[in-house]
């Protein structure tokens, strides 16, 4: 149950005076999270493991993920093929190992790009206000009004289905959320004395935005980054599953599920194994993101 506010504020007052320096440090908070939040710590380890597997995929994969062997199509699990083979006789485990590259890339790169764009636009919007703010925010409203999957589908229709175009689509659909968060933080920060002071001595706007406002938004951005990654991974999976994302013979998990669903009743592992791989990677990122949010920025709204 939650505490009575009265008592809590009293306790907090003592803490704030003496331990502000310790508390403000992000690394301290993350270290503290690793110590106290086991689930998040284990998720972090798992993510590191997945990243290592993705980088050294050729080492970990028992077979060539693209090697077609029509003589051993849709074979069940065996010592040779731990997760069996798909409809073209390719080793499912090897394809899953290589597929982690697509998921991680799609989780990290477009998320990072969209956050850079969103942060810059959010800072401009929040710092300058006025007309430019109006334009950027109405654009964000429009992007956020779309159901994200449908907007991504429209973009993929225009650009054509490919992994590279997926990056572009995911970047376009995700910048607006970041822009809104950064804008609201920039707006409240620019009223603070230290910004007023910097302005009054003639510090350049760009310097204020990137040297003074940005560092203060950083904790939220770190949290936002980890919580956006699973969304991007799921979007890629959904688009590839619908056939408008990654294209054959690419080893993308969503695409593998799409190909495997035809054999769901005869050979379920071909469709379900990559699906479960998606579940695991998304779940670990979500656990880590939740842990980071609780540790760094507990007041951030979902």
């Amino acid at each position, binding site marked *: 149950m939650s505490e009575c506010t*009265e008592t809590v504020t009293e306790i907090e007052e003592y803490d704030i005076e003496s331990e502000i320096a310790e508390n403000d440090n992000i690394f301290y908070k993350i270290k503290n999270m690793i110590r106290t939040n086991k689930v998040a710590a284990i998720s972090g380890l798992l993510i590191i493991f997945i990243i290592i597997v993705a980088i050294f995929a050729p080492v970990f994969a028992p077979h060539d993920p693209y090697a077609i062997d029509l003589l051993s199509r849709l074979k069940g699990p065996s010592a040779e093929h731990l997760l069996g083979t798909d409809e073209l006789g390719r080793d499912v485990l090897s394809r899953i190992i290589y597929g982690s590259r697509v998921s991680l890339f799609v989780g990290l790169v477009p998320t990072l790009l969209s956050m850079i764009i969103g942060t810059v636009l959010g800072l401009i919007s929040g710092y300058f206000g006025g007309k430019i703010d109006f334009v950027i925010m109405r654009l964000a409203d429009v992007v956020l009004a779309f159901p994200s999957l449908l907007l991504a589908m429209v973009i993929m229709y225009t650009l054509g289905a490919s992994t590279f175009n997926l990056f572009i689509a995911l970047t376009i659909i995700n910048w607006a959320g970041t822009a809104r968060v950064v804008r609201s933080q920039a707006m409240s920060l620019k009223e603070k004395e230290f910004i007023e002071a910097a302005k009054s001595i003639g510090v350049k706007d760009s310097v204020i935005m990137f040297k003074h406002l940005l560092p203060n938004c950083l904790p939220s951005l770190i949290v936002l980054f980890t919580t956006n990654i699973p969304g991007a991974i799921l979007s890629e999976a959904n688009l590839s599953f619908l056939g408008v994302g990654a294209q054959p013979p690419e080893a993308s998990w969503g695409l593998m599920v799409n190909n495997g669903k035809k054999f769901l009743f005869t050979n379920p592992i071909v469709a379900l194994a990559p699906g479960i791989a*998606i579940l695991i990677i998304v779940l670990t990122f979500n656990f880590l993101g939740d842990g980071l949010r609780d540790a760094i920025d507990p007041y951030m709204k979902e």
Partner: protein
Amino acid sequence: MAKYFFKRILIAVPVLIGVAFITFMMLNVVPGDPITVMMREHVKPDVIENLRKTMHLDDPAIIRFLRFLGDALRGNFGISYKLSRPVTDLIVQAFPVTIKLASTAAIISWIIGIPIGIISAIRQSTIIDQMFMGFALFGVSMPVFLIGLLGQYTFSYKLGWLPVSGFESWKQLVMPALVLGWNSAGTIARLTRSNLLEAMKNDYIRTARAKGLKETGVVVGHALKNSLLPVITIMAIQIASLLSGSVITESIFGIPGIGRLSVDAIQGRDMPLLQGSVVFATALIIFGNICADMLYSLVDPRIRVE
């Protein structure tokens, strides 16, 4: 209050026009002539030339957009390239199907999600809370197609309880709605919990305790009503995620709704159909948001009584 809603709707109009504009521009700069899509390669050049004229394909993009907007306002989204039927007819046919699926899924997500969120909040930081929240995160993290395929494999193939696909009988509604609802339930549970915990921090909770009210009375009578107010806002957000989810669900279960329509449109490169269904679905979300706002202000006395 009427003034507030007038303003609210006034803001929604440009957003909707923006949505239509972006959709139209993106779909109309696509390389690959729609006529080739319609007729394949076996057409004489002069026939193409004629068609280009009748379809106004040579006009500037902005003129074509304004024409599209004008037509759309009159309920005309053009003719589907592939099916040769008015897009509006196709949408009107598919719309009730999607609504039936999405609303059943929404109700399922509330039935599962809200109680889980409440119990977790009351038992904060206990084993029960951690289990429920782990479960909710599991639901949030699961791709819709994986739940769908697992459902088909277990309930249709192994157990034979429910049909694999289709949308004629209630039996065919059960699994897709559960699949879509399960995905949403996790979000609802997490948000209900965090709202309730937020509400429990309020001073009036302490007042209620100081009156001598039982803890259940405090939670149900005082915290819950305040924390369910934001849940209404969440339901509005839910419309968008349910629509995205129904694209996948409908394509797995072969349900003839809006989502399936847009997937078919993409695969058949049927531009007017895709354009129509996307603009329509987004309009639906914007409308849903306004409705949620209205509902919110009807329930919250701070706004209602003003």
